[in-house]
């Protein structure tokens, strides 16, 4: 396989990471999800600071493998991925554009900003299917660590939400 020998730029790396979909919410890229904390490039050596969503999220392994693979294809000779916990990843970091994409994907966006978790969980989420706010939380734990399960009393359908953290 031929590798480009020119040095990479940080912009190139950010752009590439912006095209990697989140393994569980593929409408968002890793950059949109906010898990990329920093990128450092030194010639063909790249360091990426990865901010885990939930520490036990099984998708972290997939993300790491995908980042490594894509940056090597881009021409990186070495890729170092460090876990970064400061500041901890928060759903408050999701952009307004990302929230719109979540609704289209059928996932109620997390309320923001998170001040008190009790209050934020008590506030009803808008149903991504019919737009009603006549909804209730059915389970604060869902099919992935970052999701909650809700029920809409208007369209009588269950739906999932992104867990505010």
């Amino acid at each position, binding site marked *: 396989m031929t590798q480009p020998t020119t040095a990479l730029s940080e912009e190139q790396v950010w752009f590439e990471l912006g095209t990697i979909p989140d393994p569980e919410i593929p409408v968002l890229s890793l950059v949109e999800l906010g898990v990329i904390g920093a990128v450092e490039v030194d010639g063909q050596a790249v360091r990426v600071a990865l901010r885990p969503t939930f*520490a*036990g999220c099984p998708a972290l392994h997939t993300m790491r493998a995908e980042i490594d693979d894509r940056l090597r294809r881009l021409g990186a000779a070495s890729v170092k991925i460090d*876990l970064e*916990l400061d500041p*901890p990843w928060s759903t408050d970091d999701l952009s307004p554009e990302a929230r719109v994409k979540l609704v289209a994907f059928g996932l109620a966006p997390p309320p923001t900003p998170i001040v008190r978790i009790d209050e934020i969980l008590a506030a009803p989420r808008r149903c991504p299917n019919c737009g009603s706010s006549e909804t209730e939380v*059915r*389970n604060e*734990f869902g099919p992935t660590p970052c999701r909650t399960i809700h029920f809409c009393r208007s369209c009588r359908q269950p739906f999932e939400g992104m867990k505010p953290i």
Partner: protein
Amino acid sequence: MNPGLRASLADVLLALADDELILAHRDSEWTGHAPILEEDIAFANIALDELGHAGLWYRLVADLRGEDAERYPDRLVFHRPAGAFRNVRLVEQPKGDWAFTVLRQFLFDSAEQVRLKALADHPQASVAHTAAKILTEERYHLRHLQAWVTRLALGTPESGRRMQAALDQLWPLARQLFQPLSGEAILVEAGAWPASSALATQWQAAAMDFLIECGLTIPGQILPDESGRQIHSAHLEPLLSEMQSVARLEPQGEW
């Protein structure tokens, strides 16, 4: 941080990591067996969270010992004998009934809150950041478990009876959570660890208030079991032999 303190810090963090790992394993035993589907999902998530938290602490242990943070945690988890684990006996007990599971998780999570809040101010940034990260996730656990303890303790005579039986069995075991850790003394002296005795007082007051409000009776004066974290019940070995069986078949294997 001098080498002596680093080594001690690694030892105390290993104890926290082992607690999370073994509890995660016990919680995971409910997957496919929980009383209702919602709880099957919830406990699978809680197990996964605790496993993730164990992973964060194991990484710090690796860093402090100058080991590879990607590989060393697997060695600690899959290739140590029971006698080298530093978890409390509380977490290795078989999962029991639903009351036992819910109450154990509540006792553990409420104790963890107290410890994590103290560690969030740790002078070593990596420790403080890890504690802060875990705290953001743990809010969900504590809410969930408090709701279940209330529901069962104040539910039917049968659910209340089971909760009291669980408390009678778990309370003495839970006290080991804040027994001073081996290696803690020099760290406390250096301002690099919160003294377990101070945390114990804080936790017991909060936990007792909540349990009494739920109509439960705190077991009377019992002689605490003073044996340390190197002593395990007969339940840890079978747990580890199951958890480690695949890794031990192919110690050099990669997956």
